[in-house]
C-alpha cells in the first residue's frame, strides 16, 4: 500500500486534550480511516500547532481524502512518499 504525507492546516491551532474527549476524537479518526482502509501511521505537529504533517498508508489519494472528510479534517496537500534512511548511506 502506498504511503502518503498529508499536510493539514489548523489556523486555530490543534489542541488534543489527553482526556476522554481526546481519546474519543482519536478513536473516531481511526475508525473513520478503517472504513477507507486507511491507516494513520503518525503525525508531526508544527511548534505553533497550526500545521500537521501526517504519515498515512492508504490505497489511493482519494481514499485519504474520503477518510479526512469523514473526520472533518482539512487537507492542504497529499504527497506520495518513500523512506530515505541516511544511515543506509552513512553506515550505522
Amino acid at each position, binding site marked *: 500500500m502506498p504511503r502518503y504525507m498529508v499536510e493539514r492546516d489548523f*489556523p*486555530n491551532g490543534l*489542541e488534543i486534550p489527553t482526556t476522554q474527549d481526546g481519546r474519543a476524537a482519536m478513536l473516531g479518526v481511526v*475508525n473513520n480511516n478503517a472504513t477507507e482502509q486507511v491507516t494513520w501511521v503518525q503525525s508531526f505537529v508544527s511548534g505553533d500547532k497550526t500545521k500537521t504533517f501526517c504519515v498515512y498508508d492508504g490505497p489511493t489519494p482519494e481514499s485519504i481524502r474520503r477518510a479526512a472528510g469523514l473526520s472533518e*479534517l482539512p487537507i492542504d*496537500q497529499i504527497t506520495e512518499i518513500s523512506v530515505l534512511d541516511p544511515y543506509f548511506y552513512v553506515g550505522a
Partner: protein
Amino acid sequence: MLLERDDLLAALKEALDKAVEGSGRMALIAGEAGSGKTTLVKAFIESLDDAALIITGACDPLTTPRPLSPLLDFAANDGSGLEGLFALEHDNVTIFHEVLDRLRHSIRPVVMVIEDAHWADQATLDFIRFVGRRVADSKALVLVTYRDDEVGPDHPLRSVLGQLIPLTSTQRLHVPLLTVDAVTTLAGDSGTSPSDLFRLTDGNPFYVTEILAAGESLPSSVQDAVVGRVARLEDGPRKVVDAVSIAPRSLDIEYASLLASGRMDDVDIAVGSGVLESDGRELRFRHELARSAVETSMPPGRRHGLHRTMIGLLKEEDPTDHARLAHHAIKAEQPDLIAEHALVAAEEAKQRGAVREEVAFSMAALEVADLIDEREVADMRMRAAESLYVLDLIEPALDQVKLALEWYQREGLVEQQAEAHRRMSTLHLGTGQVEKSLAESQQSVDLLESVSDASSNSLATATATLAHHYMLRRDATHGLPIAEKAMEYATTANSETTTLSVKHTMACLELIAGRLDDGFTHLREVVDQARESDRRLHTSAITNLGSGAGEMRRYDLAKEALEEAVAWGESHDMDGGVRYARSWQARVAFEQGRWEDSVRFAEPVINTELNPASYSVLTAKGVLGRVRVRRGDPGGKEFLEATLEDSEGHHLQHRWSPASGLAEYHWLRGDNDSMVEGLQSMFDAALVADSPWARGELGYWMWKAGAIAKPPADAAAPFAHQILGNWQQAADAWSEIGCPYEVALALYEGGEVTSMLEALKIFDSLGAKPMSDRTRAELRNSGMESVPRGPSLSTRQNLAGLTNRQMEVLSLIGRGFTNSEIGKELFISKKTVEHHVSAILTKLGAGSREEAAATLEKMGA
C-alpha cells in the same frame, strides 16, 4: 472487510464498558458455521487497541477433544499471567479458581475468549459454567462462541447454556448471515455474480469468502465438511440425499423416493439426520453449498444415472422446460440431449434478455456442435457473439464470428458473410483497431453491393454501420451522405427496426455536424421508440444521448440520459453499458467541478472492469487522472499517461480529454516542451475532425504552451474567447455552461486583482490546490498584502477546535451581538446560545466573550 457487524461490535463494547465499571459479563456468541463469530471477536479485540488484557483459547474439533483445551491455550498466551496454570498438578476446581482469581485481581480489564464451545470437552463445559456463574464481580468480559445449529437438545453444551442464560451477567448475541447488499460488496470486482454468490451461500460469510477465494468452482474445504456429514448415513438414506443433491433447489419427495430406494423410511431418516429439510412435499438441503458438495462427491456413473432418470421424469412432467432439461442433460453428459435442449434454452434466454444465461447455454451447445446442423451452429455463433459483446467479452466474440464467417464463405452465403464482417467491424472497435474496423465495415457494404440480389434490409444495416463508423471518427462530411443512403435502403426494405437503427446513426451524425437540436431530438425519439422493440438499440441510443450531450457540455441533458442508461442497464444485465454510462457520469461531474462525485462514479468502473482498453476504463481513468492533477494529488500524471497508452489506436474522442489533462499537468509545472510533445499529434487529428470541443480544449493548451497564437477554426466558443484574450466573455460562457474551474481559469487569465480574487475564491472552494497556490502567489507578487487564506479557516472543524455552528456564534460575538441577538440571527434559543458560548470559552481557554472575540481576530477570520 467486516460488514453488518456494527451493532454486535457496539454491544460487545457496551458489555466491556459495564465490565470495566466492575460488573463483569459473559457474552454467548452464537451463529452457524462460517457466520463469522471468530471474525467478530477478532475485530472487537482489534478495536480495543490494547485497552484490555486479552486471553484466548479454543476447543478442538476432535472425535475425542483434549480436556481443557481452551485453558491450555490460556497458559500459552504470553502475558496472560496464567503461564503456570498447569505447572502444578492441580485438580480442575483449583485450576478454575486460579483463572477466576486472575480475572478478579487484574488491574487492567480482561477479555477472555473461549472459541467453538460446541466442541467443548466435559471439563471445559464445567469451566464455562463455573466462570459464567462468577464473572459478575470481576472486571472481565468472557466471550464464548458456538455454532447454535450444531447444539441440539441433546448436546452437552445445551444444559450449560440453560444454566447461564437466566443470569443477568450473561448476554446472548447472534451473528446473522449477511444480506444481499453485503454479499454484493464482498463480491466486489471478483467477477462472481453477487446474486449467484448469494443464492449459493445464503450470505454465509465463510462460504462467500471461500468461494471468492477459490474462483468459480466449489472449494474442497467446504465440500469436505458437508460430504463428511453425509458419509455417516446408512446406504438407504444416503441414496435419498444423493437424489436430492441433483435437483438444483429442491426435489419432490415422491421423485426423491423414486430416484433412491423407493422406501419412505429412508426419506424420514435422511431428514431426521439434519442433512435434508422437508416441508412435507419437497426435500431440500439446508444449504445450496451442501447440495452441490454432495452432488460433486458422487461417483460420476451414479451421478449421471440419477440425472438421466431425472430427465425421464421431467420430460413426462413438462417436455418444454428446456432450461431444466438442458441442465440435467449437461450434468448427465448426454451430448444428444444437450444439443436438443441447450440450443432452445439459449434462444429462450436471449428472448427474455437473460444475456449471461444465453451465453452459458450457447457455449454448452457449441461443445457438442458436431451433433447440430452446421448452418444452425454458424448462426448460433453469430448470436452468441452478440451477447458476448454485450458482456464485454470481445475476444471470445471475435472467435465465434470468425468461425461463423469461415462457414458462410465455404457455403457462398454473401449476406451472412457481409453480416459477419459488419459484426467484426464493431468488435474491432472494442480493441481499438479503428482502421481494421472501418475496413471490415466497408467490406461488408462492398460485398452486398457486388451482388444484384442483396436484400435492402442487409444493405441498409451494413450501410448504416459504415455511417456509424464515420460518426465515431467525428467525420460528418463522409458520414451524413452514407447515412442518407442507408435511410433510402431502409425505406425500401420497409423495416421498422432498420429504419430506427439508421435514424440513430443519423441523429448522432447530426450532433457531430453541429445540428444539436435536431440531433438531440431525434436521439430521444429513438430512445423512446426502441425501448420495447429493440433493447440493444435502446441502450446504445440512451448512452449516446448521455455521452453526446456530455461531450457537447450540455450537462442537464447528459445527466438525465446517463441516469436513465444506468438504471436500464442494471435491470437488464447490460454491464458494459452501465460502466460506460458511469464513466461519463464521472466525466460530467468532473467538468462541473463536482470532483467527489466524479471519483465516486469513476472508481467502481476502474475496479470492476477487466479490459483496461475498454472505453469505460479509458474515460474513468482519464477523469480520475484529471481530478488528481487539479487537486494537486499524486498519481494524476501516471493515470493520464496510462490512459493515453491504453487508448493508443482508439478514436480521438477517447483521447483528447486525458491528453488535455496531461498538458495541464505539465503547464502547472511550467514544462511547455512536454505539453507540446503530448498535444501535437492529437491537435492535428482534431483539426480534421468535426469536434469543436476537442479543437477548443486541445487548441487552448497548445496556446498555453505557446505553440499557437490564434484559436483553430471552429473551436468551441469559450476556449476561442480565452485564446483571443476575451477572458470576461470566456468566464461568462463557462459560467453559463456550468464549468467552475474553467470560469476560474478565465478569471485568473484576466490578470486583474478583482478577477483574480474571484478566481481564487472558486479555486479554493473546488480544492484546486495548485491553482489556488499559483493565484495567491501572483496576487502577492503584484503587491497585494493580505491575500485571503483558504476555506479551511471558516468551514472546517478541527479536532479540538470549534464546530461550524460554534464558529458562527463566535463571529457574531465578535460583531458585538448579545446572546439573544445571536439566537434570533441563527434561529436558536437563547439557552442553546449560552451552551455554545460556554463551549467556545472552554475550547479557546478564554475568560470572557471579549477575550474569545480577540482570539477570533487573531485567527484572521
